[in-house]
């Protein structure tokens, strides 16, 4: 059992010597009386794929826009390679953005779109041609160079937007929900491509999404934002296995939330009662559906058995998700690989070690009644 959030994961390949690539220091942002971000501090390392995850209104896009230079921070500083960039206009910052709507210039061909950044900075024609062709090649759009944005599909626009940003070799690439407009299959495909591209180029990506499964799939590190604050940050596996708060446990993956009370080292939660070596007081535990055991249950200490009725079953191919009713006011979810149990009432179990003790985000004075 662990209660502490994991330490910040280091960048993919480069060591942690010297200052962080991008440092966000105590950044706050208010729109009028509305505080959107509250003293955010964050370091992004070279070559890192960092995801800002959160529901709408969590401030993730605002943070991205602050880094890009489209908004001004109310407080705090943003440093790139040790130098302040928050006081510079967007066009001077060596960070580039891939917009949710792609924001391709409709009056320019794919080639001219991709060439835009180099062209406004006055690079030579030959250099532009070589670089643009290379960038379009990287996203497999070289044969579409003379097309206009209205003549290509959403996925292709996405690739052009990516090439248009990458051609300028940004220090950091910002991606604002770039895949949300694509359909499910294409989305998964683009996730792979993005990840591969990022590894190949070694450029730090800051990726904004509200989709937790997308975040888990492609990130080196996830920063979970909630109401303008960092709820938790860490590698996908850590943040999934060890959610720090109730919010984090519920937002990332499916989770059973069990509330209860500890007295004299014994936790009483709904129908369960088991030893738990923590201080007395109210507790909240997270139990992932996949740690639930059924069928052959080892009889060893630290395993809590219980009887439950299978109320509902969702078949997901490789596994099934069961809804269990343990008592009239206690329902849990369990993931079962292979064939689901046939009996309606049967025995399930979990290891105490698989429970994750969550921080109490909202105080809950009332006790759960004891079994």
């Amino acid at each position: 059992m662990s209660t502490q959030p994991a330490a910040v994961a280091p960048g993919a390949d480069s060591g942690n010597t010297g200052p962080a690539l991008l440092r966000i220091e105590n950044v706050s942002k208010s729109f009028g009386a509305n505080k959107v971000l509250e003293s955010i501090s964050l370091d992004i390392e070279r070559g890192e794929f960092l995801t800002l995850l959160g529901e709408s209104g969590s401030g993730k896009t605002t943070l991205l826009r602050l880094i890009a230079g489209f908004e001004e921070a109310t407080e705090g500083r943003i440093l790139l390679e040790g130098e302040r960039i928050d006081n510079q206009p967007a066009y001077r910052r060596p960070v580039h953005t891939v917009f949710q709507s792609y924001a391709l210039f409709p009056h320019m061909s794919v080639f001219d779109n991709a060439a835009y950044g180099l062209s406004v900075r006055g690079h030579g024609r030959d250099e532009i041609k070589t670089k643009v062709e290379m960038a379009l090649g990287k996203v497999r759009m070289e044969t579409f160079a003379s097309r206009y944005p209205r003549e290509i599909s959403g996925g292709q626009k996405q690739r052009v937007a990516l090439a248009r940003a990458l051609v300028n070799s940004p220090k950091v690439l910002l991606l604002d929900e770039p895949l949300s407009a694509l359909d499910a299959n294409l989305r998964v495909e683009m996730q792979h491509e993005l990840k591969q591209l990022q590894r190949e180029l070694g450029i730090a990506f800051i990726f904004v999404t509200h989709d937790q499964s997308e975040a888990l799939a492609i990130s080196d590190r996830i920063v979970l934002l909630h109401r303008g604050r960092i709820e938790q940050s860490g590698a996908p596996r850590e943040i999934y296995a060890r959610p720090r708060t109730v919010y984090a446990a519920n937002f990332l993956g499916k989770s059973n939330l069990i509330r209860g009370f500890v007295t004299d080292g014994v936790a009483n939660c709904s129908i369960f009662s088991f030893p738990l070596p923590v201080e007395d007081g109210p507790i909240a535990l997270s139990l992932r559906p996949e740690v639930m055991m059924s069928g052959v249950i080892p009889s060893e200490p630290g395993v809590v058995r219980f009887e439950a009725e299978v109320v509902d079953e969702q078949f997901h191919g490789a596994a099934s998700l069961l809804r269990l009713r343990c008592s009239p006011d206690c329902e849990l979810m369990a993931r079962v690989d292979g064939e689901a149990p046939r009996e309606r009432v049967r025995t399930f179990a979990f290891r105490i070690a698989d429970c994750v003790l969550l921080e109490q985000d909202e105080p809950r004075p009332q006790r759960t009644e004891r079994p």
Partner: protein
Amino acid sequence: MRASTFRARLMTMLPVAPPFLWIALFLFAPYCLLFCYSFWSVNEFQIIQRHITLANYLHLLTTPLYLTVILRSLRIAFSVVVLSLLLGYPLAYFLAFHAGRHRHLLYQAVIVPLWVSYLVRAYAWKVIFGNEGVLNTLLLWLHATQHPLGFLLYSPFAVIVTLTHIYVPFVVLPVVASLEKIPRELLESSSDLGARPWQTFLRVVLPLSLPGVISGATFAFLLSFGDFLAPLLLGGPSSVMIANVVANLFGADYNWPLGAAVAVVILLIVVAILSVTQRLERRWRTA
């Protein structure tokens, strides 16, 4: 069965019949009449002769005066367009991007002059530009000049200024509409890719607002080209425009056939300009 389909067709045709009738009666028929007149002639007693002849068109082509007046009208119209764009585009830009909460007020301020009678506004310029007008009095009082400036009134200058004043809203409104249609992400994206504000303007904003510029410029050009009152009230002999010639031919000269021929030539010029600008606009819209 047949009767019912006929009835159904009749029912769908009925509501559009009045406008069709209107157009046929008051647009199509007069144009046909105009076209016919242009091939007729008048004899020395000013009686219209209904034999088909090309004499009117030959007269137009061989008399340099008509060409001069047409060219002058085109030149004045072109000047009005340039001036209106120079004044209207920045105003439209400000309205679309920076006016903030004053947007509505400013928008109204652009439109309100359209409610004021053309005549009133034309006379206002007369008051301003006259020998004892507002401007000359001011200049004399400031000792900027010894004698009232005569070129202000009864000159192409006065006509151009007045027409610009009248047609600026026709330029501003379509330009504002096209500027407002530009997604704001495109501007952010341009800046994000390293473009300075003026580069963003030249490479993104201006090209994307061209459809509005073209339609506004077309309005101002055609309306100025066919204008009759401004040259009449504020122009001297040096700024007679083609519409004045037509008016004279139909009025004092009582040569309807020749007037009709001039009108047909104007119509052809207008159609030619419209087809060019429409093609331009369509190209920009699809691009």
